[in-house]
């Protein structure tokens, strides 16, 4: 049962389940448990949290018994950070700067997550797509967006 011989996918998933389950079950102690007849708000999450921790433990054990250890693919930091970052920037900008700016920034930052960034294409996209979206969502569907920083 050498440590390097574990199935990393199962191992990581097991840890994740244990952390999430433990968190939900542990935090449930802040709420009244109630009884089986009148279940309090903590009852259901405690059961589920415990179940999740149990599943995590099973996965963890299984990962050590793996004969053909399967390595998960490497984290692709560039797309991960760019896409998540783009989404967060959009969320942060749409209030103060309006939809047009937020959309353009999101497309630019998101595009850096791709494998083949070309300025010309992305610049065209940055101009065309926000305009299309304003047309569809603001004028077409009548959604109440703030369009520009000054509006």
């Amino acid at each position: 049962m050498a440590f390097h011989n574990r199935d990393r996918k199962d191992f990581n998933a097991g840890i994740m389940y244990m952390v999430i389950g433990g968190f939900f079950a542990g935090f449930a102690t802040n709420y009244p448990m109630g009884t089986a007849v009148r279940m309090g708000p903590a009852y259901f999450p405690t059961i589920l949290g415990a179940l999740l921790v149990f599943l995590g433990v099973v996965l963890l054990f299984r990962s050590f018994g793996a004969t053909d250890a399967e390595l998960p693919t490497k984290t692709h930091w560039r797309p991960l950070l760019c896409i998540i970052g783009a989404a967060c920037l959009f969320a942060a900008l749409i209030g103060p700067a309006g939809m047009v700016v937020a959309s353009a920034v999101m497309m630019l930052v998101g595009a850096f997550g791709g494998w083949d960034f070309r300025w010309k294409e992305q610049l065209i996209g940055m101009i065309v797509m926000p305009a299309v979206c304003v047309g569809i969502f603001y004028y077409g569907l009548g959604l109440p967006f703030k369009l520009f920083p000054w509006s």
Partner: protein
Amino acid sequence: MDFSSVFSNLILGFTVAMSAQNLLYCFIGCLLGTLIGVLPGIGPVATIAMLLPITFNLPPIPALIMLAGIYYGASYGGSTTAILVNLPGESSSVVTCIDGYQMGRQGRAGPALAIAALGSFFAGCVGTVLIALFGPPLAELAFEFGAAEYFSMMVLGLIAAVVLASGSLIKAIGMIVIGLLGGIVGTDVNSGIARYSFGVSELSDGIGFVSVAMGMFGFGEIISNLGQTSETKHIEVSKVHSLMPTWEDIKVSIGPIMRGTALGTIFGILPGSHTVIASFSSYTLEKKLAKDPSRFGKGAIEGVAGPESANNASAQTCFIPLLTLGIPTGAVMALMVGAMTIQGIAPGPQVMTQKPDLFWGMIASMWIGNLMLVILNLPLIGMWVQFLKIPYRVLFPSILLFIAIGAYSINNSPFEVYMAALFGFFGYYASKWGCEAAPLILGFVLGPLMEENLRRAMLISRGDPSVFFTRPISLGMLLVSFALLLMVVMPQFQKKREILAEADD
């Protein structure tokens, strides 16, 4: 069975569905669904989640008709890409790739697309009739259900969803549990306590599962796609010369279409089943029945006709458990539940009696939607081909933007966009470690329902858990769940699941 009432109900349905407004929304839905479904790397779940906010401002009937149209459109778009570029838009078109793409390379992409469309249309017709026939009696049965039965049925639905799906069973159950836990975040109806909200006012309303679906199926998928391919993919699009299948093609396809429809119907009604299984079983069946099985994989038209019909039949009949029992059987149906809830409709047997125009209108619109797909798609194939030629590097920033705007417009708040980003991050790592997103979405929707019914059942039984085993319907469902779990452990079944898992990747 009362055929005359079925007939009068269908007439009511068609009057609703044929109104100019509803026809228009059905058309827009089919068109948008196909448009986005054709784009590689976006499956039906992401498509529906992305387009869901568009329907928020509509009245319930057009909104649901449009969503159903989006769903068929997205499924249909998936097969188009499978045949033309060998890229399955969704897992259920994996099988279509095998022979469909080969036909395309032999210059027979047109007949393959036409047969796929006609087979799907036939399957859609049968599915619609079946819903009309079996919906009412099933709904009547559901009225007999108490809290214990509902709870057991949800257990069965969730178990079936993981058993028939692919990948590791333990991981899938874990994802369901995470979904259930995420689903109960927010104000507890009984005590008024805001659970796991940490003082964030948006969280006390619960986590919106639309943003969860957008995050996991939208952002998460895009990150995975960008990670997988490090260089520009050269997509070769098969040329479509003529759409007309030969007389020979049609004759060979009739059998597979019939059998595929039958298989798909059965798999669609079963709780938790996947359209993938329907299309896979149909392919296997046709290959077994064929006089010359070696033709399969080299462009046999039966290999397109059967699975495509099966796929569409099950996409149709999986509405039956949703509309009659109020139980979603998969991620797409879970999104439909969400859409109904947003419209103020609680899915379940009462929809049919309280809102017959909605129920029958939706069913009639399913048939109309299928017809529209045939009429719409065959002439428009040239346009879809043009869409397929857009490189992914140009496409994905626009998809990102659509997801973000969609998430924002759920509540007009940036909070939902942050949630989608968070779940995109989570979804990326989860799928990396072999944990699927679909069971989580299902759990998310069922979480509050399950807790509510568990509480009610236990309150009525005065805290005696044996209530789940003494009521016959409830016991039956738990036994089936148990049997399903046992089945997975059996080695023969294990092999089948592995094959499916490979196809899903």
